[in-house]
């Protein structure tokens, strides 16, 4: 097919975006594990049979109940990059359908086996593998349809589905457990996921070879993003310094978000629990983070298209840095409103990073190998966790996290400067 300019993205572009959103809504079940955990755990009765609606299940200890979740996270990490490759090489349809069906099968297996072993095989192994393979598929497929001026919003919408899943699965899962028991909830959700991914998977199509997104270059997006971008191979990507800059920028958004969330979220919960309003509406506390996280992904993506990727990154990091510098004060006042604001900003910018980075990658290195290339950049997300731990070391040495907050804030400022210096790589191959 010969490249031809078009004025508007075809309907298939939007269909792909919302199919991706729907698939991620299913894959995000990971965030709702705590619902099942609370149904499964009973430390006093661990090892004993459950009665009533959950007959056949055995009560678990806390450590046991965390095992399927943690295994799921690791399987996710192991299979995410190969998943990106499946997406680039075979098709996003195959990747998403395969991942979604694995997860669906995992849920059904977990439900029917009615045991700890079943949860490990079903939720941990099959579920984690499904999420890893499936997660990599929708974002690049949807991004390939759009020009740089819409990438932010699209990435935000697609990954927003994953964050948004926490909201509805938490509620739905609880209802299903109450009505049909643990087995019923897994089997029903699994069947539901299977139907959704098979239907949505059919609609998930990457654009045909030679497709050019409509060029509405109005100076939006990252500087230079609107010019034609070479499709980089991973081997060449790693030789550009911009790759390391992107990884480092990813580390910074992740670490600061995690640091605030891990230190202030618990405090927010304990402070709020004493109030009658929150005691009656506990769901607000549980879903607050997920909600802001999801909105942060879509919102950041949206304004990154308007004001530029770079400015959006700087805005998020700048506000977060202010947050970090004021965190010692906020924690000392134990003011619930301020805590809500601080935790909200952290979730927003953490989610925002997850939607900014794929768009950055696409702007810099082209859309063709986006799945694999973004997988490499995603290593920065993992390294971000490492920085959060350094906060722990500082806490052990100095007795408080304050120094860690200041360092993290200073790093964010460094991140803004780095982002300002990072220009699109030139391909001379």
């Amino acid at each position: 097919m010969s490249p031809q300019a078009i004025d508007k993205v075809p309907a298939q572009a939007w269909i792909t975006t919302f199919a991706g959103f729907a698939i991620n809504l299913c894959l995000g079940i990971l965030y709702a594990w705590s619902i099942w955990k609370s149904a499964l755990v009973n430390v006093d009765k661990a090892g004993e049979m459950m009665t009533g609606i959950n007959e056949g299940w055995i009560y678990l200890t806390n450590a046991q109940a965390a095992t399927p979740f943690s295994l799921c996270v690791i399987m996710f990490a192991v299979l995410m990059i190969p998943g990106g490759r499946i997406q680039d090489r075979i098709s996003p349809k195959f990747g998403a359908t395969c991942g979604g069906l694995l997860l669906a099968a995992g849920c059904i297996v977990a439900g029917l086996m009615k045991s700890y072993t079943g949860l490990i095989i079903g939720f941990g192994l099959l579920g984690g593998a499904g999420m890893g393979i499936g997660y990599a598929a929708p974002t690049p497929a949807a991004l390939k349809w759009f020009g740089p001026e819409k990438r932010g919003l699209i990435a935000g919408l697609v990954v927003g589905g994953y964050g948004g899943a926490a909201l509805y699965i938490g509620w739905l899962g609880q209802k299903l457990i109450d009505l049909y028991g643990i087995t019923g909830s897994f089997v029903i959700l699994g069947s539901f996921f299977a139907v959704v991914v098979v239907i949505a998977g059919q609609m998930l199509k990457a654009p045909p070879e030679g497709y050019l997104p409509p060029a509405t270059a109005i100076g939006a997006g990252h500087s230079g993003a609107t010019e034609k971008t070479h499709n980089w191979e991973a081997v060449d990507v790693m030789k550009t310094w911009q790759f390391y800059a992107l990884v480092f920028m990813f580390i910074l958004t992740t670490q600061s978000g995690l640091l605030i969330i891990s230190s202030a979220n618990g405090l927010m919960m304990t402070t709020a629990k004493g109030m009658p309003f929150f005691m009656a509406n506990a769901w607000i506390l549980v879903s607050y983070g997920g909600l802001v996280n999801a909105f942060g992904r879509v919102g950041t993506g949206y304004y990154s298209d308007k004001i530029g990727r770079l400015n959006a990154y700087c805005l998020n990091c700048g506000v977060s840095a202010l947050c970090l510098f004021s965190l010692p004060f906020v924690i000392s006042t134990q003011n619930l409103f301020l805590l809500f604001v601080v935790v909200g900003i952290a979730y927003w910018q953490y989610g925002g990073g997850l939607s900014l980075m794929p768009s950055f990658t696409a702007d810099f290195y082209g859309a063709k190998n986006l799945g694999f290339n973004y997988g490499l950049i995603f290593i920065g997300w993992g390294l971000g966790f490492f920085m959060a731990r350094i906060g722990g070391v500082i806490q052990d040495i100095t007795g408080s996290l304050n120094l860690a907050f200041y360092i993290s804030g200073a790093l964010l400022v460094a991140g803004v400067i780095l982002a300002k210096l990072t220009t699109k790589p030139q391909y001379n191959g």
Partner: protein
Amino acid sequence: MEDPTLINLPFMLDFSNLQFDTTVIFIVSILLAITVNAEAQAFMATLLGDARSEARDRFHFNPFGHINLAGLACFAVAGFGWPKQPVVHTKNFKHPGFYLILVRFAGPFANLMLASIAGSILWIMGNWGVEDQVFPILVAVNIIMFIAGFIPIPPLAGASLISFFFQKTIMPSIHLNRILRALPYLFVASLVLAKLTHGNILNVYFSPVVEPIFNFISG
């Protein structure tokens, strides 16, 4: 989870009393550890100038493509092991001998980094009051991989030091190649023998190093 008695270092499966959960966790940890080890070597090789067009066969992030039989057997016996060694064309390097050392040692150091990341997640979970047995095992496996990397026996990174210092004195020959190929299996066999006779040769050297690192990383 901070309780050191929860995890024996090096982490090994108890074959007389095999638990399903720890077995699965151990296998998944191994897959992740060897993938990170092998990909880091490939990454370093590419970075130092060995960027071959057919780099796909070593740069694929598919855990099952990185499995090496002797390395896997070693995990079962001694708690550490190695991936299939990524092919590196030293001719493309500016300083072949020295760069090969850097490439091989990128593996173990990547394991140390993974251990740190897993330790961080463990720390955050601890902050939130979540008990967990998966990440401690992931940390343990990766730390052992890091320490064992220094053993100078061919599939492990330490061997690159030997070939570097004795490059001139050792003449490559068919016999040498055969010995080199058999060495990993002999190594595993000797570990099995040591285990059967209840000798803890390696642990004597491992424990003093592994335990402090584990305790530091897992908080």
